[in-house]
């Protein structure tokens, strides 16, 4: 197999990155008690890598299991079980070399077969994983037929050449494929344990895992505890001994418990960041996250005629003062958005959309002009409803925006809130006029966001369809540098405004100064690994 130059560079970059994995830098005085305790909003769904679907579950799974690659503090790939990989000339075949010393917590070696088993398990219709579709995101060959049960599992584009060589075949070239291997659902699974215990294999008394930690206790809706895995290949360089995730539903109670010293990390309740930052400047943190917040228009047949006029959509978008939303409503260091893709996305150069360069007065003037042109005004006022799911922060944004629309454009907005499941169903059925939307990236590359505006995307709630966008995005998949396509798509979104970008997220936390020095604030996906953290003596 011919190895392309790029992959050699990639492989050597990875090899260089590995010594940096030793968690604590030399000369740092470590705290005696290396227990990291943090708050989670809700009980995790599962710790089975091929079943887990929620953020807090994935955080635990990333500690318990280790996939081909991990991320470092900046979100770059670093070796996990895989030391490096090479890519064939046609860019369809990836060959990963696995670390020979990697072991499961029961002492068995981690082999390529464990990855094949895990990935097949993910695609297996009988296993019914909620992340089954991820094998398609990864672009594995034959993913579709295997998922549908029309082809045997062995046909999936992954096989073990020997114990320490994994070969992956893609359906079509995809430059960001290696990035997808840090996702929890791609982690290996111990077949012998699953065969023995069935669905109970992830209970603390049965579980066997290959990550830096093992699950030692789980009391649903109260806490889960993971402790150091003595068999982990890099156990020597791991500092944190014990990690406790405490389930605390109420964020204000969590804050009180944080202040009482019971927690090392918790979320800052909406609107409280400025006050907390002033009182605890070293403890209150805000940093960019890979998520966006936007409004969907309904461009489907069921949608209102008024917003099918691009001038109306532009007017509504321009009239929103995003600075007020982030600075006065949310107050947590969020970023006003004029593109769909967050600026924090790796390798993505945020294009300067035209309306982002105007002042708000200019935007308001333009908005009035456009709306009048479209035939709406005092004699023929525009009115519609805005749908969001019941939540304090969403309500605040909705009220602020509806006021801006009312004051600037004289538009009447009825605010409508629904409980989460009802909201999802209503929005999914296109039974709305304008609806809230938000998205967090599955991987750190712009397509994880932009794919949403593709005609056949399952998450295209606006029902937007533009042949040029579809073509640009399809082409981007196999391009070495798709930035030009992404810029063009963002420009089209700004011109046609099928959605209104409102803001890009910030992670807003209270974090004990003991731990915050090692926290990967630069990693916008917030894929953190307890093995890379350490607590310094205070």
């Amino acid at each position, binding site marked *: 197999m011919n190895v392309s130059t790029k992959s050699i560079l990639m492989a050597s970059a990875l090899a260089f990155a590995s010594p940096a994995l030793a968690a604590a830098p030399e000369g740092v005085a470590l705290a005696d008690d290396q227990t990291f305790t943090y708050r989670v909003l809700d009980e995790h769904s*599962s710790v089975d890598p091929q079943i887990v679907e929620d953020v807090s579950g994935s955080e635990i799974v990333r500690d318990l299991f280790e996939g081909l690659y991990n991320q470092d503090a900046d979100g770059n790939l670093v070796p996990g079980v895989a030391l490096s990989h090479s890519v064939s000339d046609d860019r369809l075949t990836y060959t990963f070399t696995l670390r020979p010393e990697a072991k499961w917590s029961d002492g068995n070696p981690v082999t390529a077969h464990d990855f094949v088993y895990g990935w097949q398990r993910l695609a297996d219709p009988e296993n019914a994983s909620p992340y089954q*579709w991820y094998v398609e995101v990864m672009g594995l060959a034959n993913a579709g037929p295997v998922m549908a*049960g029309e082809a045997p599992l062995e046909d999936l584009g992954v096989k073990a050449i020997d114990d320490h060589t994994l070969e992956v075949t893609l359906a079509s070239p995809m430059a960001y494929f290696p990035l997808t291997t840090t996702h929890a659902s791609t982690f290996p699974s111990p077949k012998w344990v699953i065969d023995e215990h069935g669905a109970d294999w992830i209970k603390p008394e049965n579980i066997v895992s290959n990550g830096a930690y093992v699950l030692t206790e789980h009391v*649903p809706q109260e806490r889960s505890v993971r402790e150091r895995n003595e068999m982990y290949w890099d156990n020597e360089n791991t500092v944190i001994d014990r990690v406790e995730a405490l389930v*605390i*539903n109420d964020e204000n109670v969590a804050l009180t418990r944080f202040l009482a010293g019971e927690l090392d990390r918790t979320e800052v309740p909406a609107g409280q960041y400025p006050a907390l930052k002033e009182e605890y400047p070293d403890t209150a943190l805000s940093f960019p996250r890979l998520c966006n917040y936007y409004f969907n228009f309904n461009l489907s047949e069921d949608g209102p005629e008024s917003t099918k006029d691009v001038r109306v959509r532009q007017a509504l978008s321009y009239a929103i003062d995003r600075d007020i939303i982030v600075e006065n409503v949310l107050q947590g260091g969020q970023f006003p958005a004029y593109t769909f893709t967050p600026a924090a996305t790796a390798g993505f150069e945020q294009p300067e959309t035209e309306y982002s360069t105007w002042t708000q007065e200019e935007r308001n003037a333009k908005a009035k002009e456009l709306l009048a042109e479209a035939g709406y005004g005092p004699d023929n006022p525009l009115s519609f409803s805005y749908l969001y799911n019941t939540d304090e922060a969403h309500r605040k944004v909705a009220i602020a925006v509806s006021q801006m629309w009312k004051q600037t454009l004289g538009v009447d907005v009825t605010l409508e809130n629904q409980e989460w499941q009802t909201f999802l169903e209503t929005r999914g059925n296109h039974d709305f006029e304008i609806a809230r939307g938000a998205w967090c990236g599955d991987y750190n590359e712009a397509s994880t966001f932009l794919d949403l505006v593709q005609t056949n995307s399952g*998450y295209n709630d606006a029902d937007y369809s533009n042949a040029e966008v579809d073509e640009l995005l399809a082409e981007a998949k196999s391009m070495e540098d798709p930035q030009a396509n992404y810029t063009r798509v963002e420009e089209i979104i700004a011109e046609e405004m099928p959605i209104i970008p409102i803001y890009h997220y910030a992670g807003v936390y209270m974090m004990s100064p003991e731990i915050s020095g090692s926290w990967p604030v630069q990693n916008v996906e917030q894929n953190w690994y307890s093995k890379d953290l350490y607590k310094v003596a205070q």
Partner: protein
Amino acid sequence: MLSFIVRRVAVAIPTLLVLLIISFWLMQTAPGGPFNSERPLPAQVLANIEAKYGLDQPMWKQLVDYLKGIITQFDFGPSYKYKDRTVNDIIAQGFPVTLKYGVISFVLAIVVGGALGIAAAIRQNSWLDYFAVGITIGAQVLPNFVMAPILILVFTLWLGWLPGGGWNGGQWDHVIMPVIALSTSYMASIARLTRSSMLEVLRSNFIRTARAKGLPDRVIIWRHALKPTILPVVSYLGPAFVGMVTGSFIIDSIFSTGGVGYFYVNAAFNRDYAVMMGLTFLLGSMTILFNMVVDILYAWIDPKIRL
């Protein structure tokens, strides 16, 4: 009495069945489903998941299978949201928690509430009465979702005496705040009920007769007045007991106790059908059982209602 109990049990079974059927139907007709999320699942994936849980079957078939599972194996099915657990697991883990803090709250509410009520009635219009009435009104208007965070603020953050949450196998220091937060409003209701009932009894003819006979107050209260006084209180205790031992969403969610109260409400939000049904079954059967206990107690206390 025996035939009364047999009769009540015979009615209880169809009642439970109707309860289950109605809840099942209501739940299925609510919009949304357990597998909806911000990111809708591709049709193929959704079909696989629904097939795994039998949700692709017609509704009557799902109901029949569900009831068959309960009757033959006492199996309440899997949780769709917490995929590593069954409903039986959730009940086995969460019910002992709420049972513990519920029973303690219940006993505390009766003892303190009853004592306050009786004391207030005996010394009507004294400072003791005003104090008791003041306290109970205060306790009743302060809802537990306000009181619970205040307790944490005071006892955890300011005083540092108690842990701010968690259960830790039911250690005493983790039980105190949930018990206080849960029992106060019940305590207040019991105190007010006892007080007004005692006042009424104390004004009745047979008490006047007892007084006329020259019986000491102590004997009048304990031997003659107490039994009729607790009659209206007892009818309140049945549902109150069920309410306390099946937990409270507020208590479980604010103190992270892991009790079934939280799972019940959350299951409704998540459309976690089997968990909702299982807990409805638990709650329903306990309600029926304790209403029956109350009826029996009634008959025992007041021969007039003997059945």
